[in-house]
């Protein structure tokens, strides 16, 4: 199993792993391959679009991007070894603390933000008289708006089960900020629409089954039958389509 899958499973939401297929396999093939290898069922994402090229000497190649978007290291994961693990741990640590460049007056605002108390963090920026107050507040707002927009796209794509989990956290964190709370409320209203009920039910059922099968025997006949039953039951929903796609992926002969 790739080390990156282990990192994603162990570190959960603290880290985002993105797998980039570089040998020309199409989306169906690499996704089927990942299912077959039991690498799915976690937060890792899979693409064949390279965000940037590597400078290493072959595959696999790993690159670590830090919390501020800086490329920190790259190379063969085996060669980076412990250095990579330590760098990931250091970045996770950093992600929970105010940035080193943050002035002392705004450290409390950053601490609140990292605790998920966005409204309180913004209020703290407004209270503190510092030349960086406005920029810090803008940073909190833009990161939160990005989360709300992503939540909207999750709803568009039919990932309602996952969207609801995000929504609960967001509602709590922006409650005392009218502007952000209104943006979150828009998404909340979409989720509450009556025609979302079946989609919500489908999302919950399909996500739960696929997550369970991911590390067991995803493409065994029995597993595929169960997923196919959900695809039939929830035909016409986005999650039903997701289940049907899984069934199609299970038919792909890897290496053929």
């Amino acid at each position: 199993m790739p080390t990156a899958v282990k990192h994603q499973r162990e570190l959960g939401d603290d880290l985002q792993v993105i797998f980039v297929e570089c040998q020309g396999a199409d989306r169906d093939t690499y996704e089927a391959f990942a299912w077959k290898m039991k690498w799915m069922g976690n937060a890792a994402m899979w693409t064949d679009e390279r965000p940037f090229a590597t400078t290493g000497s072959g595959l696999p190649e790993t690159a670590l991007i830090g919390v501020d978007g800086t490329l920190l290291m790259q190379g063969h994961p085996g060669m980076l070894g412990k250095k990579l693990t330590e760098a990931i741990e250091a970045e996770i640590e950093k992600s929970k603390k105010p940035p080193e460049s943050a002035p002392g007056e705004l450290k409390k605002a950053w601490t609140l933000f990292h605790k998920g108390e966005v409204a309180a963090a913004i209020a703290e920026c407004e209270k503190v008289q510092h030349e960086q107050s406005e920029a810090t507040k803008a940073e909190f707002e833009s990161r939160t708006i990005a989360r709300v927009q992503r939540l909207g796209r999750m709803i568009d794509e039919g990932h309602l089960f996952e969207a609801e989990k995000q929504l609960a956290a967001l509602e709590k964190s922006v409650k005392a900020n009218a502007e952000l709370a209104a943006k979150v409320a828009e998404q909340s209203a979409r989720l509450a629409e009556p025609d979302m009920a079946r989609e919500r039910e489908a999302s919950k059922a399909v996500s739960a089954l696929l997550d369970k099968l991911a590390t067991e025997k995803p493409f065994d006949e029995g597993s595929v039958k169960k997923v196919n039953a959900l695809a039939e039951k929830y035909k016409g929903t986005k999650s039903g389509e997701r289940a049907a796609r899984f069934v199609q992926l299970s038919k792909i002969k890897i290496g053929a």
Partner: protein
Amino acid sequence: MKLLLVPVVAASLALSGLALLRSAVPTEAVGAKVDYRFSTAPVNALGLKSLAELRGKPVLVDFWGTR
């Protein structure tokens, strides 16, 4: 004999991998700020469109091959 074959096979694999990695994608140096907007959402993206949206969280990019 086996011991001699190991470095030869490893070097061949590394070279073939290197050839596959060559592309028109810009190379970023360590220390550079990186961003990328995906033209097609990755599998399991859950609404994510760009690396910039992950600011505040470390990102591990794993370049690999199915074959």
